[in-house]
C-alpha cells in the first residue's frame, strides 16, 4: 500500500493540480479512461467544496491518496473549515435561479464508496473509493 500526501493552497488555480495527480496515479494503476475521468471529476468536486463552502481559515487543505495495488484507489480531501451536516444537503433544483449542491451528488454517483466526516468548527474530511474494475470499459 502506497500513500501520497499533498498539501494544496486554498486557491482555485491549484484544483487542476489535484486532477493531474489523480489522473497520473490512476493511469499507473491501470484504471480505464472512463474511470480516470470520473476520478478527476470526483477529486475536483471535493476540492471545490473545500474552497467554496468550508470557509477554511487555513491557507491550505490536504489531499491524501492511498493506493492499493490491483485493488482500489482511495483518496481523502480534508479541510479545517466550518464543517457541515451532510444529511442537510438538498438535491439541486434544475429550475432554480442559483444552482448548488451538485458536487456531492456527482461524487456519490461516480465513486464506489464515499465517507464524510464533518465536525462543526473543526472541518470536513471526505474519503472517496474507486475499485479497480477488471472490465475493459473505455
Amino acid at each position, binding site marked *: 500500500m502506497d500513500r501520497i500526501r499533498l498539501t494544496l493552497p486554498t486557491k482555485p488555480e491549484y484544483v487542476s493540480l489535484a486532477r493531474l495527480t489523480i489522473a497520473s496515479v490512476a493511469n499507473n494503476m491501470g484504471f480505464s479512461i472512463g474511470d480516470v475521468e470520473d476520478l478527476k471529476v470526483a477529486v475536483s468536486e471535493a476540492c*471545490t467544496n473545500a474552497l467554496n463552502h468550508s470557509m477554511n481559515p487555513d491557507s491550505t487543505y490536504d489531499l491524501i491518496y492511498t493506493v492499493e495495488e490491483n485493488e482500489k484507489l482511495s483518496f481523502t480531501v480534508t479541510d479545517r473549515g466550518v464543517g457541515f451536516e451532510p444529511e442537510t444537503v438538498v438535491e439541486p433544483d434544475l429550475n432554480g435561479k442559483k444552482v448548488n449542491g451538485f458536487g456531492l451528488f456527482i461524487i456519490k454517483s461516480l465513486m464506489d464508496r464515499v465517507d464524510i466526516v464533518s465536525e462543526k468548527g473543526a472541518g470536513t474530511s471526505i474519503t472517496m473509493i474507486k475499485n479497480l474494475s477488471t472490465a475493459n470499459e473505455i
Partner: protein
Amino acid sequence: MDNKNRTGTEQATMISIKGEIDIYSIGKFRESIEEKIETQAPQIILDCTELSYMDSTGMGVLIELRNKAKEMGQKIIMMNPRPNIKKLLNITGVDKIIDIIENPINQS
C-alpha cells in the same frame, strides 16, 4: 479556457467553448458567455467539441444560462460534448433540460 469564437445567423448563434471549465476558469467563462448570448437568435448553440473538462461549477452556470434564455424565449443547445461531459449531464439530469446534439461534420 477559451470561448472566443462565435458565428451567428438569424436562427442560431454558435459559441465555441474550449479547454477546461472549473472553479478557476468559471469567472471568465460566465462573463464572456453572458456577453455573447445577448442575441436575438432563438437558438444558442454551444459547440463543445474542444471542451475537455467540465464539472458541477460549469454545469451550474449552464443551467442558470438555460433558465435565463428560457425566460427570453431562447433555447440553449450543447453540440458534441465529449463522453465524460455527457455522462455528467446524464447523471445530473441536465440533459433533460438542455438539448444535446451531435454534429458529425464537427467531430474530431
